[in-house]
């Protein structure tokens, strides 16, 4: 069943890899991003490699009032929608500059949650569909080093969990992706431990598999489930003194 796949935040490395992984399985692709005309080469790439139809769509996740119209403008209601939208920001700036903190909160929670909510209602009306939200292990427990980003992802994770619960009986499935570290533009300036860091392609293949097998929550590298179980088990009295 090769339904169209909508990729939100299509410029991200994870999104590009995900678009390729679905196109390789012959799905038509809808790439949505701010300044979508800049993705002409990505469109050409998917068409050249996989001989599938690809369309480009301008999309700003923060323009929540425009989300219904955005979905109306798609050539077809997608069967699968993946949100790779996110903004890491600088924790130190987020602590002192409210505007920056708000941007991080809105870009990781409000925008992605609202668009997936809009798509969810359409999927319910049709009676089918899969929504994939890329959240983060940073949302599993707030830490000093990135709790503004983490809190927004926590909100998004909770939203996806609730959405999944609501839609479970309506043949619409929701996948929550917590990729752990990924080697992308977002983390290019960080020195990440190799064993814990996935390549975008790994995340993409895990997403395709999760959609096919209707998985609920995936951690791309299995080790992350363990790491986060341990981190979440540390008593708060101890945790507050650590610097993880």
């Amino acid at each position, binding site marked *: 069943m090769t339904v169209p796949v909508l990729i939100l935040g299509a410029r991200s*490395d994870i999104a590009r890899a995900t678009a390729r992984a679905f196109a390789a399985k012959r799905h038509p692709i809808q790439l949505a991003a701010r300044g979508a005309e800049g993705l002409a*080469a*990505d469109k*050409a*790439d998917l068409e*050249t*490699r*996989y001989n599938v139809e690809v369309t480009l769509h301008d999309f700003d996740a923060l323009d929540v009032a425009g989300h219904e119209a955005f979905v109306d403008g798609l050539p077809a209601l997608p069967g699968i929608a993946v949100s790779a939208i996110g903004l890491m920001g600088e924790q130190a700036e987020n602590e002192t500059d409210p505007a920056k903190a708000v941007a991080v909160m809105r870009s990781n929670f409000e925008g992605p949650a609202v668009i997936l909510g809009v798509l969810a209602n359409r999927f319910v009306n049709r009676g089918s569909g899969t929504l994939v939200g890329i959240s983060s292990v940073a949302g599993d427990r707030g830490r000093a080093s990135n709790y503004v980003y983490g809190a927004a992802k926590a909100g998004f994770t909770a939203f996806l969990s609730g959405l999944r619960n609501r839609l479970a009986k309506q043949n619409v499935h929701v996948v929550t992706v917590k990729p752990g570290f990924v080697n992308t*533009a977002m983390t*290019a300036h960080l020195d990440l431990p190799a064993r814990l860091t996935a390549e975008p392609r790994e995340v993409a293949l895990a997403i395709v598999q999760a959609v096919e097998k209707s998985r609920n929550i995936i951690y791309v590298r299995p080790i992350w489930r363990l790491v986060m179980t341990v981190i979440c088990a540390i008593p708060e009295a101890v945790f507050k003194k650590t610097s993880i």
Partner: protein
Amino acid sequence: MQLSGWGNFPKAEARVSAPRDEAALAALVAEGSAIARGNGRAYGDSAISPRNTIDMRHFDRMLSFNPATGQLVAEAGVMLADVIDAFLPRGWFPMVTPGTKLITLGGAIAADVHGKNHHVDGSFRACVDWIDVMGPGGEVSRCSHEENAEMFDWTLGGMGLTGVILRCAIRLRPVKSGWIRQQMIPADTLSAAIDAFEANMGIPYSVAWIDCAAKGAHLGRSLVMLGEHAEPGEVPPRYRATPFKATRHRKIPFPMNAPGFVLNPLTVRAFNAAYYWKGARQKGTRIVDWDGYFYPLDAILHWNRLYGRRGFMQFQCVLPQDAAREGMQRLLSAISESGQASFLSVLKRFGPQDSAFSFPMEGYTLALDFPRSRAAIALMPELDAITLDHGGRFYLAKDSRMPAEILAQADPRAEAFAEWRRDRGLPASFASLQSERLHL
């Protein structure tokens, strides 16, 4: 970060950036001492610049394909493996491929790589219609045989020292299946191997694996392997319905650097003898799949770790046709006398080559690899001298240790290339550890 080529030597501390668009790339180039790096398969220091190594692998988009001409336009970071993945199912294969598919198109162009079909089709250059190259100021010029022809000539084989290759148009070859009709000819001596090459100049693929440990009467004992793309009707029955589909080989990762004693002259000798006798039993014609035929080593990820932490050296030279028989004999005698058997030794006939600075020339090329032991290091100058004596030259994509004087003596084009670079003010903008070592 610590950076090295595929041979794990030399290792150097280098700043590596991985830009995602042309503007970011231009800003890096403007900093000077830049060298573009693809998938890191050059063996030595060709793609290392301590101050400014530019990882091009984000430029990995295929831009268009014309089924009427077989022309593929793609960004330089696209890998040959991706080209095969995308196009073999549609009946197309790279026109020229080296022994690994894990290389970028940019790297293939910079090294002007060759394959088993050089004697018929020439080097990679033969399939390149045009390239886009970014110069020192971030300007991009389209270069082909007609347009900016001089830049085109020096960039093919120019080891990234003329600018950053951004995009290319290459022609693919139509094939009728993903299978190869392989013919194995055991040759008991070097001379017999060369005779086999000369007798089969019309067969598109040919290569010989040499048992470098064989001595005396068996010196140069080899397995000559010829190949042609198979017709759909020759595909093994199990695969006949999907003649382009790869038979999935499981990738075996080589987990860690092997301890130094794994590859010693004794084990290498044993391996080589066993390989020869196994091959000799497979004498005659067989149908084999493309992956196993062209890329046997790709099935073992990180096979370079076999050589341990100290890494290994490649030696690859070409000798002109009229000096090849005698020169190869001398090279093999020198190796055999040194007791330093090479693990994988490959002999190949080259056809004519017309280009500014590419490695091939009509004659025979010999490729060897040695662990970086003291004895092997001591053997290199001897092999260099024999190559010089016979009018041969060296492959820069394999080189990690050649002195500048040797290159200058072997290849007068090196000085011309350096001069051309100086005239355009390129040395300040584009440099690698190799270009500095070799005064390019």
